[in-house]
């Protein structure tokens, strides 16, 4: 119990002092994860909808692969991106390794399958319900996909939030491609890992409490924004 009290005290102290390092770490964490989620949504939502609506050879294999990649271990995703971006790798001359850009790429790789898999389920349910109408009206496929995505936007919010949850919580991938460099690539989760390894458990737990609060705030905002929009739509 003493440890938890010390953790909350450490968190409180960090927050009220407005520690500039903490502010930098938090904004980097949110910046990297939100950018990754936007990119992953731009890729994953159309991909999921296409898998739900279109019929093409290899579609079932595609669905299985996307579902399986939801379980992609972050360390593996990180290692994959590391090998790509390393100076000795194919994209080495971009010089992106150990920068926030590399962390965005790694998290996009992690989050896209989650967004795509949930989006496919949401859109497939809608397709089953309204598909015939689109077929009777002779609506083109691209328009069908876009229209179904818009129709399912409230359900798809869950897909995006699940992706965001994965992105802000993971440490394995960004530790490898970011290098946990102080002031450059140190995020909330890598800072927590670092403080744990320095044996400062109170500070580590305190940072964890702040991270949880932030995630809670983002989810609450999305929930209420979604609720307001839904009421406006009906």
């Amino acid at each position, binding site marked *: 119990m003493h440890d938890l009290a010390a953790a909350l005290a450490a968190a409180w102290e960090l927050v009220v002092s407005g520690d500039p390092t903490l502010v930098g770490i938090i904004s980097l964490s949110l*910046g990297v994860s939100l*950018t990754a989620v*936007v*990119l992953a949504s*731009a890729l994953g939502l159309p991909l999921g909808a296409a898998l739900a609506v279109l019929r093409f050879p290899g579609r079932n294999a595609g669905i299985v692969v996307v579902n399986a990649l939801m379980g992609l271990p972050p360390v593996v995703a990180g290692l994959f991106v590391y090998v790509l971006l*390393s*100076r*000795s*790798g194919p994209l*080495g*001359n971009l*010089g992106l*390794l*150990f*920068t*926030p*850009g590399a962390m*965005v790429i790694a998290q996009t790789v992690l989050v896209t399958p989650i967004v795509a898999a949930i989006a496919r389920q949401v859109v497939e349910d809608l397709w089953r319900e309204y598909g015939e109408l689109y077929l009777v009206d002779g609506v083109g496929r*691209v*328009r069908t996909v*876009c229209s179904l995505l*818009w129709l399912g936007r409230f359900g798809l919010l869950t897909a995006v939030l699940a992706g965001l949850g994965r992105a802000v919580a993971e440490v394995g991938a960004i530790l490898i491609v970011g*290098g*946990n*460099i*102080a002031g*450059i690539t140190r995020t909330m989760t890598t800072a927590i890992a*670092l403080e*744990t*390894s*320095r*044996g*400062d*458990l109170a500070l580590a737990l305190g940072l964890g409490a702040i991270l949880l609060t932030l995630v809670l705030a983002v989810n609450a905002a999305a929930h209420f924004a979604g609720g307001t929009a839904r009421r406006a739509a009906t």
Partner: protein
Amino acid sequence: MRRAVRGFVAGCLLLWASATSFAAQPVFITVASTTSTEQSGLFRHLLPAFSKTTGIEVRVVAVGTGQALKIGERGDCDVVFVHDTQAELAFVEQGFGIDRHEVMYNDFVLVGPASDPAHLDGGKDIVAALRKIASAKAPFVARGDDSGTSKAEIRLWKEAGIDPKAAGGGWYRDTGSGMGPTLNTAAAMDGYTLSDRGTWLSFKNKQNLKIIVEGDRRLFNQYGVMLVNPAKHPHVKEDLGRQFIDWLISPEGQRAIADYRINGESLFFPDAKSSQS
């Protein structure tokens, strides 16, 4: 459809904005170094002084010595600053690094539970202590991560004539993790472990652990710095990297290293020679 196009354009703009903001970078070098230098707080003390005189920002990726050398080998950093003389010499020998200099040393300490279940009763002889731990089958927590500390520990077991992994009995526990996590594990299971003094002094979760054996000449721990070979990796910032190395071994850099203390205790002792080693 128009909405989709608008969304796409907005996405592209956002991507472009984020890409350019990440691309705008000041003058910096990337240094692959060890957890012992980072977690002991040495870099937080040292780097601001260097950046102030030269205007060069130093970005430290802190990993085990083995991984740091690997990062250098792949050309993903400009300078390597580690502590495993044999591996460093091999690194230079294979042409991955040039301009190796010895910078400073500290020492390893054997830490263990205050109850001292293997009855080492202090003393200086690290090899005798390891033999006693093995015969008592007292828990020993090993790094096992190809770090400088791990390699030093393995060398000491060899000197004691014991193969702890083959010994059986489950008392030798390989964590495959950094110094801090290994110390956390040792604290939790009342085990012995070998730590560099810097990490030990700055470690905060000591619980029942204390130093059991120290001061043996065989516990000496030398740190070396070298430039990643620009002939192998042309993008290496040769000039900036050399400035960093030259500063570390200059009287000013050496003084800054000696000045770093925790509770009045020095963590690292500068020992750079003016000639290249």
